[in-house]
């Protein structure tokens, strides 16, 4: 049994955190994430959770406290965005390297300067190599569902890595939707409290975070990379388990119209809803177009992605951040390097869109599809376009 409630993306994430038996939340306000911690603080104030809420003085301290708590053995949640994520940057690597299964919601927002509070993916993309598992939600329902799933993935014995659940600022974080939420009992059955087991334990003292010289450091990094790569299997396992109780099907990616598509568009986050709507309209007129929505960005789901690309003639990669000075946007670079070692021959173009909350509309996406359908061959020079900007 599930009930439908009206919640914004931020409220949905807070609701999921409330149902996740979280022991410690340490967080700092930043738009468009703030509602998550405000809402959670309300649960604390009303005694609806057993959580210790540490209202820290910065995001750097937020993640530092989360790491301390997670190392002790607690289930830990936090949330941030933009400048806050940037301020955490140092600690992001330490969280993953010390194998802390922290879950963090990131209400994706542009990075300063100029200061801008609206959606794009520059914040998380700037930290994409920090060793976190990274999932992107398309809407508030997905943000709720992924938050619950994230704890299950993070805490698996063979994973023990932090997870960021990304939801586009305002578009998702502040938009009210009717959301199917699990009953508390069902949520608890899916995600029981983290078993009581102390890692920081005076009865069994260990040293955590020792200095490392060239003799050992490399092995730690190699093991960390193996763990992150292996975690895509854990994502699938969790998705199956979650599907069984919620009836909602997740995985590492989702597709639309690929059975017969010549042209597909691939991307992350809320824009994919608009992309699918544009594809639907074009398909009604007989255009063979489809879409690939990546839920999982790290570890990059190479195998699953390649499978979806078979038979396509052209792929448009949507990037909602700019990798200044790089040949392509971040997602496009990942896809190009995934393709390089295969003999799949398809045209690839890269669209940078939506920076600082700029809207990407159905007509804009239809135009991108049409261009790709018209294009006969891959141009020799790189095909990167900024769409929706005054140039």
């Amino acid at each position, binding site marked *: 049994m599930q009930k439908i409630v009206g919640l914004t993306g931020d409220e949905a994430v807070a609701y999921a955190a409330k149902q996740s*038996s979280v*022991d*410690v939340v*340490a967080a700092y306000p930043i738009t468009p994430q703030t509602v998550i911690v405000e809402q959670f603080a309300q649960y604390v104030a009303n005694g609806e959770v*057993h*959580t*210790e809420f*540490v*209202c*820290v*003085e*910065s995001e*750097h*301290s*937020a993640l*530092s*406290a*989360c*790491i*301390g*708590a*997670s*190392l*002790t*053995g*607690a289930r*830990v949640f936090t949330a941030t965005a933009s400048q806050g994520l940037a301020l955490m940057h*140092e*600690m992001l690597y*330490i969280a993953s390297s*010390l194998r802390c299964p922290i879950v963090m919601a990131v209400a994706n927002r542009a990075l300063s300067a100029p200061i801008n509070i609206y959606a794009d993916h520059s914040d998380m993309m700037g930290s994409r190599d920090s060793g976190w598992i990274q999932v992107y939600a398309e809407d508030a329902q997905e943000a709720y569902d992924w938050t619950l799933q994230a704890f299950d993935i993070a805490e698996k014995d063979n994973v023990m890595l932090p997870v960021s659940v990304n939801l586009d600022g305002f578009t998702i974080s502040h938009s009210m939707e009717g959301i199917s939420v699990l009953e508390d009992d069902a949520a608890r059955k899916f995600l029981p*409290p983290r078993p*009581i087991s*102390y890692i*920081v*334990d*005076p009865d069994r*003292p*260990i*040293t*955590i*975070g*020792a*200095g*490392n*010289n060239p003799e*050992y450091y490399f092995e730690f990094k190699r093991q960390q990379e193996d763990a992150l790569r292996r975690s895509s299997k854990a994502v699938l396992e969790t998705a199956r388990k979650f599907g069984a109780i919620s009836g909602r099907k997740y995985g590492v990616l989702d597709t639309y119209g690929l059975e017969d598509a010549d042209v597909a568009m691939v991307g992350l986050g809320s824009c994919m809803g608009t992309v699918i709507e544009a594809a639907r309209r074009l398909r009604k007129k007989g255009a063979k177009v489809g879409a690939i929505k990546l839920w999982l960005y790290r570890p990059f789901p190479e195998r699953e992605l390649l499978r979806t690309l078979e038979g396509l003639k052209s792929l448009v990669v949507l990037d909602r951040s700019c990798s200044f000075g790089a040949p392509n946007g971040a997602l496009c670079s990942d896809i190009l390097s995934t393709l390089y070692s295969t003999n799949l021959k398809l045209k690839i173009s890269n669209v940078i869109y939506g920076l600082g909350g700029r809207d990407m509309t159905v007509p804009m996406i239809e135009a991108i599809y049409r261009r790709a359908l018209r294009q006969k061959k891959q141009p020799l020079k790189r095909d990167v376009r900024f769409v929706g900007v005054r140039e």
Partner: protein
Amino acid sequence: MVILKDLPAEELFLPGHRHCSGCGASMAARMALKASGKEVVVTNATGCLEVASTIYPYSSWMVPWVHTAFENAAATASGIEAAFKAMARRGGRSRVPPIISFAGDGGTFDIGMQSLSGALERGHHMLYICYDNEAYMNTGIQRSGSTPHGAATTTSHAGTKLPGKPEWKKDLIGISISHGIEYAATASVAYWNDYMTKVKKALEVKGPSVIHVLAPCPRGWRHEPADTVKIARLATQTLYFPIYEFERGAYRLNVKVPNPLPVEDFLRTQGRFSHLFKPEFSSEIQKIQDWVNANWARILNLCGETKT
């Protein structure tokens, strides 16, 4: 006051580490753990103490020890405390072990000030020990907000124009107390029983406490390793580093100095001040003496002492 025969023979900070001979920081850690016993959790900021005591796969620490980064020993401790509290609510251990955070003066006076301030304001049950060697020693003796006026460091050289660091040392205890905490104290590795008594006392306080312990560094201060304790004692006997405590509103002078020596006697023992004895900088010594006198008068006043 702790006396020698009360001390456990057991070492919780083991020998074999890579600290320099005569290192004050490692002495401060060892003494603190002798005072705390093993039912304790330690967080450690990046710095000499962390680096030299835990080169993987070795560790000197016989208590749970967590190092995450440089500026956040207090924030990391906040999270550990929160975890113990929350887990207790759902069937975990009922007792939250005392938490001690160790950080150098750089990790406290400068980059870690915000994290410390936040933790003190939130009132976590933790003892924060700043071992003060008066510079960033781990990175090669750079000046910090704790480096005294006139000291030469690798970022405040004694040049032909500048006499070492132009600025003065921050008042860490004043800053700490202004957060409304119950207990704060200075201490010195030269006065071991005073220091260890304070560690015990601080751990019994509800909420946060701060100990600022002077820990000379033979490399950075440029003195013989064998002289660490002697120089630390001179720091107090010249009134350069007064030893006092603040407990629930009341100040107490713990080490009285009936026959104070001139600060020059302290300065003369260390290479970092050697340039002050050249004619062109000779006026600096008087400036330092004036600062010492004023600081001492201020502390005597706080402690309600007329003269010692």
